[in-house]
Structures are given as structure tokens and as C-alpha cells.
């Protein structure tokens, strides 16, 4: 197993592991500062209501309580948060921005919305004081069901609006009416796709210290985007950005919601720390996470596919509702991802997609790993499977007949992607990946031999294959600074935050190759605004693509400086110089100089630095792709269903995928394994159950079921590398690849396993209970058919 150099595409072991494996790694909840006070929040028990009064007198009287704040105490600091992602410029788009507030003022709009902030000597005392605060809420009927939310007379959540519609968008490609006219077959269904909570094992946390002497604010935050947090807080608190340091140390899993800015806690703790002149820490507990951290949730699709009799897709029309929760600070990223990802790797000439985003009295919805892509893939893959069955075509065969061919790239779909750029597939070669997946899962053999044989034994086994294409690596940009220090070690700083993706190794591999040093000698710092001033954050599978490319670009500039300086020092033309083993060597001679020594010479104590040149061996570079690069893949599954107990046992799970050039296969496989596990969770174990009054009925790990080691099978992976033309290394994103088609795949295989019962799956997640109902209904229908047949 090659471990480099060269390090590109090598299975390099991670630099950051030693600190994590010995318990020395700092997470935000580990921060302990002298004189630190602890924070807890009084949160709404009601999903919708008028906040009449908040009496904090008893709480303030409790020994150990230092302060209790409500909206009234915030003065001008109280205002709705910023709109993070303005919707793309799509013609006819309607969008109402209603963003969350630090503390509820006149209305509460979801269970768990913060009403008061308690500061005390310990978290224990702060929680004791929650019951002391008397909150008077006049309950209002809650808006929960997406369709009822839009009916006239439904309770209005944001009363300055005429309805609960948050947005309405239509995107068209070609003219669907033409497709409908020419079609031999129209298949239409209603699809329900409910997602869940990201549920990282580390809950959110914020620790803050205001140093009145230096007039500097230091914030430790479990954020995926420290730089935008710093920028926003500086503006809100009237400070210079240089007075605000935001540090995302080791973060225990992000998966999306740890980027949502600005959580009330992220605003309130800095504000209170400056007033009290005491360090503060708030650590979200698991129950709070289910109410206060954003989630991704349901969509209702009425979709239609028009095909020729030999299975060629002519067009798709999809009308759907998207649950955006009580507020919509993250704009329309998720539903637009759904619109774009529905097209998959297929040639769809005519496409019409219309959605309405709906406010509901539930926790705010922002992207969670996959970010709406699952919903789109579920609709297209399900319509293909249902069409295949009606036309008598094999599910793999119908997909082959619709794949885009390599000669059709770059492929412009004429609709807008989430990054406000047109959806153009940069590069792709889909047929080999589909054929490889079918070959590795043994599709033909299973259909021909294994399945018929097992079915004769009365067993219910099913196979599934599903395809997807995902937009990754979107802009706007990231930056990086690379510095060779006199010790010979290399320092890299970039603005993205890290949540386990191995950035400290992946970026080091790129830099080590560029400078000819050992990967262990490259120390990467991410998520610390003191180290790097500019940047965006970690989301949408863009870390490696955008920040990685920036690190590579900066390293290449440093390489150029090294060659220029070394050619004078070693008196040899640049072309004859090699960088290897931390040294610059003159090819064919024994003349060489250590990089550290060269770095010292680049910062002379005597003599002058030639005007127009810079001291040291350091460069900064920025990388901003003008649009996202599209990764793609095919998942395959074999499962068996015990129809008596309605339980599912996954026998095999395979991922064949293409994410362009792979920097570290070990880390890419880990990203895929984790994605598949979350996909399986969202297909059969995880569901947020809200009752009709907006109460979350499973707000703990006892009833919100994360798949465990006995629920996730071993995962086979196979890689293909179709380089992206948008960055010099050819990188595409992979962070979300594992979880995008899993729901569609699961539905296809379950339907296949229960073919004798004629069960049709148009919703996800399933559960044993739901499977029991479907099997029960299938058996009753079959019995009725047989009774009908024998009666003739």
C-alpha cells in the first residue's frame, strides 16, 4: 500500500489522530477559563403562541444565579438574524426572508425557541433556575402539515405575510408539454420524503472570553464557518474584525447544521460576556439539540415522467412542497438542490419543476448532509423503477438507455444551481460506473439464479441499483497561506473549519508534494480566524476542492520562490533544481541546501531585501471556481426481508463512484462509509415525529434511532477518477456521496423483495411498523385477487 511521496492518491495516515486517540484534542466543551460562568436557556414548550410575559424575579433570587436576560434586555442588539444565502436570480421567483431572533419577543414559533438566558455559577444551578422563570404563553393552533399550512384560514406564522408560503419557484428546461404529447407512457405518483436530524455525537457549544485590557473577544464555537461568524459578530457588537477571534478547535461532526449562522447562542454569549466581563460557556445538551439545532425535513412531491415505450425518458414534471420550519435564514439551497439533483445522470430534454417553501411551527430547516439531493434522486429513481416495471424493462437497462454520453459534456441543464450559477455538468462518464456496480454486486447472476432459488424456498430477497449526480465544490472561494520556517517545518493556514474530514492530512499531502517535504512536517491549521483572515466555510462537499486547491496554489507560489532563491544561492539554473526530502538539490551534483536554511537566508539579518520582493518563503493564494464540479456514482444493495416480523437485513452494500482525482483513498472511503450509514439511518431508522400541535415526540436518543454497528453492513467501494476541468488537480467533492441515493435504493430493493405481494414504496423513511402495514395490505390484496379469480 503506497504511502508516498508522492502523497497524491496515497493512503496517508492522519496527522491529527495522535491528539484524538490520547484524549488531548481540544473540543469547545473542554474549554475551561478562570471565573467562567455557565449558561442555560428557558425555551418555549409551545410550538405556536403569543408570549405574554416573562417573570425572571424568582430566578434572579436563586443563590448562584448571576444574570437572567430576556428580549427586553437586549435593546438595539435585538434584531432578526441575517439572510445567509440570498436566493439565486431565477425569473419569477417569490421569496420572503423571515429569520430567527436571539430571544423571542412577542411570539414563539417552534418548541425550543429561546425565551430567556440564565447565567449562573454552574450548569446545574442554571438548569435549576429554568423552573423559576415564569413564562406566560397564550397557545395558538400550530401549523404542521404542509398542505393544510397553505389552506385559507390556516393560522399564519409570520403575520406580516398573507400566507405561510415562504417562497415559490419554477424552473423549466425545454417544454414538458411537448414531452407529454409524444409520450407512450405517463407514470405519476405522490412521493413523501422525510429526513431527520444531523445528530452529531458532539452537541453545539460556545465559550467566550472578553479581555477588557486588550479589548479583544475570543470565541470558541463548534461552527463550520468561523470567518463569517467573526465578521457578523464584529458588525453586531461594533468591533473591528481584528478584535474578534473565532476558533473552531476540534469539532465533533458538523454535517451541515453547525454552519447555520447565527444561532441565538452564538450572538447572546459574546454580548453577555462583554457586559458581565466574565468568561461564559454554553454547552447544548442532547435534548436541546433536538429543538435548538436546525434539522432537514419533509418534502411532498407530485411527480410525473413521460417515456417512450422502449423506456426513453422524454420529460419530467415535479410539483413539490418543502418544509422550511419556523424561519428560513438559509434561503432556498435545499429545494433548489432537490430541483437540480432530480435530473441525475440522465438526458432529460423537457423538465418542469415547481416548488413552494412552507413555514411550519417546527425547528428551523437548513441543509443536512445531502441537503435536499436525496429528495430529488428519490423522485427520479422511483419514477424510473415504476416505469421499468410497467414497460417490462429491467431497472438497470432502463437507466442505461437514458444516461448522458461522454460526448455530451459539459452538459448545460439550463436551470440554476444553488450557487446562482447555471447547472452545468463539468465532466462525467456514467455508463462504466453503472456497469461496474452491476458487475460487482453480481446483478445478472442474482436475477437469473440466486433470487428465483431463494424465492422458491419462500424467502424474500431484493436487489437495487440507483444512480446520482451531485453538485459539489461550489464557490465563492477559499484561501490559504503556506510558510516554510527555518526549522524546515511547513505551516499551512486556511479559513475552513474541520469536523473530521482529515483536512490536516489531505491539505498537507498537496503541500508536501509541491515542496518535496515529508507530510508529517506540514502542520495545517484550520478554523482559526487569527491564523487566516479570509474564507467561507465547510459545507456542500467543497473542503478538498476549494480549500485544497487554494493550499496547492499557495504551495506552488512558495515552490517558485524556493527555486528562484535557490538558483542564486546554489548558482544553478532553476530547471536543474529538484525539491526532495526537504532539500533543494542541483540535479547531477551533490550540491544542495535544506529548505530551513534557505528560509533563514530569505529573511536576512544583514543586507537588504530587494525592493519588490518579499522576505521569507511564504505565499498566500485564493481559489474560487466559477461553478461547482459534478461528482457522480451508483449504489447497489442486496437485502432480505423477514415478512413475519417486517424486519430488513442488508446482505451487501456497494458504492461505485467518481469524485475526480482522489487525494487520500483511505479518507474518501471513510467519507463514503459515513454517508452510507447516515443514508441507511434516514431510510429505515431515523424519523422526527411531530404531533399535530408541533410537539416533537422523540427528542432523545432513546427514540431517535441512530444506526449502530449491527445495523450498517460492511460497505464495498470502487473508485473512478474523471478529472474536473475546474481545478488544476481535477478534484470533485465526496462528503455527501454516501447518503444521496440510499433512500431510493432502499425503496427499490424492498419493493423487489416484496414483488409477490405487489407492495409499492412511495415514501421514505420506512420502519418495521410501516413495512408491516404495507405487507399486511399486500397480503390482503393478494387474497382478494385470488378469491376474485377463483370465484370466476
Amino acid at each position, binding site marked *: 500500500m503506497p504511502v508516498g511521496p508522492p502523497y497524491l492518491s496515497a493512503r496517508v495516515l492522519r496527522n491529527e489522530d495522535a491528539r484524538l486517540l490520547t484524549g488531548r484534542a481540544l473540543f469547545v*466543551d473542554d474549554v475551561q477559563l478562570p471565573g467562567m460562568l455557565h449558561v442555560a436557556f428557558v425555551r418555549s414548550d409551545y410550538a405556536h403562541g403569543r408570549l405574554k410575559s416573562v417573570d425572571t424575579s424568582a430566578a434572579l433570587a436563586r443563590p448562584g444565579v448571576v444574570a437572567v436576560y430576556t428580549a427586553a434586555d437586549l435593546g438595539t442588539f435585538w434584531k432578526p438574524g441575517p439572510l445567509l444565502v440570498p436566493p439565486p436570480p431565477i425569473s419569477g421567483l417569490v421569496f420572503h426572508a423571515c429569520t430567527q431572533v436571539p430571544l423571542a419577543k412577542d411570539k414563539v414559533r417552534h418548541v425550543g425557541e429561546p425565551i430567556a438566558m440564565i447565567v449562573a455559577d454552574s450548569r446545574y444551578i442554571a438548569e435549576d433556575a429554568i423552573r423559576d422563570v415564569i413564562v406566560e404563553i397564550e397557545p395558538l393552533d400550530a401549523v404542521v402539515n404542509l398542505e393544510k399550512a397553505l389552506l385559507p384560514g390556516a393560522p399564519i406564522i409570520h403575520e406580516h405575510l398573507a400566507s405561510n408560503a415562504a417562497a415559490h419557484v419554477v424552473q423549466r428546461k425545454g417544454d414538458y408539454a411537448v414531452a407529454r404529447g409524444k409520450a407512450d407512457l405517463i407514470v405519476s405518483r405522490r412521493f413523501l420524503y422525510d429526513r431527520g436530524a444531523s445528530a*452529531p455525537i458532539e452537541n453545539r457549544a460556545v465559550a467566550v472570553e472578553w479581555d477588557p485590557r486588550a479589548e479583544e473577544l475570543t470565541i470558541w464555537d463548534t461552527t463550520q464557518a468561523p470567518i463569517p461568524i467573526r465578521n457578523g459578530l464584529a458588525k453586531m457588537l461594533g468591533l473591528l474584525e481584528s478584535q474578534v477571534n473565532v476558533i473552531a478547535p476540534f469539532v465533533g461532526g458538523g454535517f451541515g447544521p453547525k454552519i447555520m449562522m447565527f444561532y441565538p447562542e452564538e450572538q447572546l454569549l459574546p454580548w453577555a460576556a462583554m457586559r458581565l466581563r466574565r468568561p461564559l460557556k454554553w454547552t447544548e445538551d442532547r435534548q436541546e439539540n433536538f429543538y435548538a439545532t436546525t434539522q432537514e425535513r419533509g418534502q411532498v412531491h407530485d411527480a410525473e415522467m413521460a417515456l417512450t415505450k422502449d423506456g426513453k425518458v422524454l420529460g419530467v414534471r415535479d410539483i413539490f412542497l418543502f418544509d422550511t420550519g419556523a424561519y428560513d435564514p438559509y434561503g432556498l439551497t435545499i429545494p433548489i438542490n432537490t430541483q437540480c439533483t432530480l435530473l441525475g445522470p440522465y438526458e432529460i430534454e423537457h423538465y418542469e419543476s415547481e416548488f413552494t417553501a412552507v413555514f411550519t411551527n417546527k425547528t428551523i430547516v437548513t441543509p443536512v448532509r445531502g441537503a435536499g439531493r436525496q429528495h430529488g434522486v428519490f423522485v427520479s429513481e422511483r419514477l424510473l423503477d415504476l416505469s421499468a416495471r410497467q414497460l417490462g424493462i429491467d431497472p438497470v437497462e432502463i437507466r442505461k438507455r437514458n444516461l448522458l454520453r461522454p460526448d455530451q459534456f459539459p452538459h448545460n441543464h439550463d436551470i440554476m444551481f444553488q450557487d446562482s450559477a447555471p447547472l452545468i455538468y463539468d465532466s462525467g462518464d456514467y455508463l462504466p460506473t453503472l456497469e461496474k456496480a452491476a458487475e460487482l454486486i453480481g446483478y445478472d447472476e442474482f436475477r437469473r439464479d440466486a433470487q428465483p432459488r431463494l424465492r422458491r424456498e419462500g424467502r424474500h430477497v431484493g436487489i437495487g441499483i440507483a444512480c446520482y449526480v451531485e453538485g459539489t465544490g461550489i464557490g465563492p472561494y477559499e484561501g490559504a497561506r503556506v510558510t516554510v520556517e527555518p526549522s524546515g517545518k511547513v505551516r499551512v493556514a486556511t479559513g475552513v473549519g474541520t469536523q473530521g474530514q482529515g483536512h490536516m492530512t489531505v491539505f498537507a499531502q498537496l503541500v508536501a508534494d509541491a515542496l518535496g517535504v515529508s507530510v508529517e512536517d506540514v502542520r495545517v491549521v484550520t478554523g482559526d480566524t487569527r491564523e487566516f483572515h479570509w474564507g467561507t466555510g465547510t459545507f456542500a462537499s467543497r473542503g478538498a476542492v476549494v480549500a485544497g486547491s487554494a493550499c496547492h496554489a499557495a504551495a506552488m507560489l512558495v515552490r517558485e520562490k524556493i527555486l528562484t532563491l535557490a538558483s542564486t544561492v546554489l548558482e544553478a539554473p532553476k530547471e536543474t533544481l529538484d525539491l526532495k526530502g526537504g532539500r533543494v538539490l542541483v540535479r547531477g551534483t551533490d550540491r544542495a541546501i535544506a529548505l530551513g536554511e534557505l528560509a533563514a537566508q530569505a529573511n536576512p539579518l544583514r543586507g537588504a531585501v530587494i525592493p519588490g520582493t518579499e522576505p521569507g518563503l511564504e505565499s498566500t493564494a485564493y481559489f474560487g471556481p466559477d461553478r461547482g464540479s459534478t461528482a457522480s456514482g451508483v449504489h447497489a444493495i442486496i437485502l432480505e426481508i423477514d415478512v413475519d416480523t417486517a424486519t430488513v437485513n442488508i446482505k451487501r452494500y456497494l458504492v461505485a463512484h467518481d469524485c475526480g482525482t482522489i487525494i487520500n483513498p483511505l*479518507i474518501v472511503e*471513510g467519507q463514503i462509509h459515513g454517508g452510507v450509514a*447516515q443514508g441507511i439511518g434516514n431510510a429505515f431508522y431515523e424519523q422526527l415525529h411531530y404531533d399535530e400541535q408541533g410537539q416533537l415526540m422523540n427528542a432523545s436518543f432513546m427514540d431517535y434511532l441512530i444506526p*449502530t454497528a449491527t445495523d*450498517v453492513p460492511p460497505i464495498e467501494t470502487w473508485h473512478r477518477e474523471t478529472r474536473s476541468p475546474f481545478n488544476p488537480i481535477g478534484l470533485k467533492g465526496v462528503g455527501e456521496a454516501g447518503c444521496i441515493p440510499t433512500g431510493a435504493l432502499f425503496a427499490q430493493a424492498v419493493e423487489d423483495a416484496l414483488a409477490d405481494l405487489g407492495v409499492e414504496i412511495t415514501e421514505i423513511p420506512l420502519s418495521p411498523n410501516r413495512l408491516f402495514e404495507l405487507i399486511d395490505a399486500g397480503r390482503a390484496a393478494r387474497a382478494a385477487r385470488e378469491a376474485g379469480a377463483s370465484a370466476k
Partner: protein
Amino acid sequence: MPSRISIATTVNGTRYVRDVEARLLLSDFIRQDLALTGTHVGCEHGVCGACTVLVDGEPVRSCIMLAVQADGHEIQTIEGLSGTSDELNPLQTAFRAAHGLQCGFCTPGFLMTLTAFLRDTPAPSDDEIREALSGNLCRCTGYHHIVEAVKLACRSALP
């Protein structure tokens, strides 16, 4: 102020005598009073396993045990797995070699659970490994590389 109780407990070979409130959770005692922050808290209702430590050699959820209950007992946390410096023991080495961790927040719980499991079951089957791991939740790895790490640790531990 609620009454405080004096407790004496040995953690990673060091004896500590402290006065604690009866309601102080063992997880908070280890993390805040002893500043051993390698043990992590993920749920505080005994499900995720991130807070697992060894009490008298057996894995236990420290978030659903009181600090006063540790009086007179011996505790081992992740900081006590390898020597004072940061070299790794065979299990930790195997986790790095097989990429058995990503964000690392759940890793302390896995390492403590596996330290006891591998002591009792030195050559487990894949199914036995997965069952032993099923009490610890991980959201990043999908468990595949963790199982590989355990198998690697077993192979390297064979004489």
C-alpha cells in the same frame, strides 16, 4: 448550599481526594474537577457511549453514574491508555492505521469499551466485534473502518 461529600478515587493510577456535591455526575467530575477532558459527553442519558470509562476494569457510562459512587473505586479513562508521552498503545495504533476515527469525538468511548472487550475476548469474530461496538454510536465512520481497526489490533496482539 447543598451538602458536599468527600470522596477518594484513583484515576489512571493517581489518587484524588475531593469534596463533591451528591448530584455531580461522574462525567462532569472527571472532565471539570479533574480536567481530564478526553472523556466526552454526547447525550447524558446512557445511549451514545461517548462517556464510557472503566470502573474497576469494566466499561460504564459515566454520564449516568454519580461521582460519589466512584468513592473507593478505580477508574481508567482514555488519558490512561498509553504512557505519559503521546505514543499509542496497540489498539490506538490500529485505529490510526485503519482510519477508525474521523471527528474523534466518540473515539474515547470506543477505545475504553474495546479495551475491556478485547481483554475478555482476544480473538472475536466480525459479528462479535459488531455486537460489542453496538453500544457506542458513531456518526462519521459508518463503523466499517472501526471493525477493521479492531481486527488489526487483534492480529498485532497475537504473539
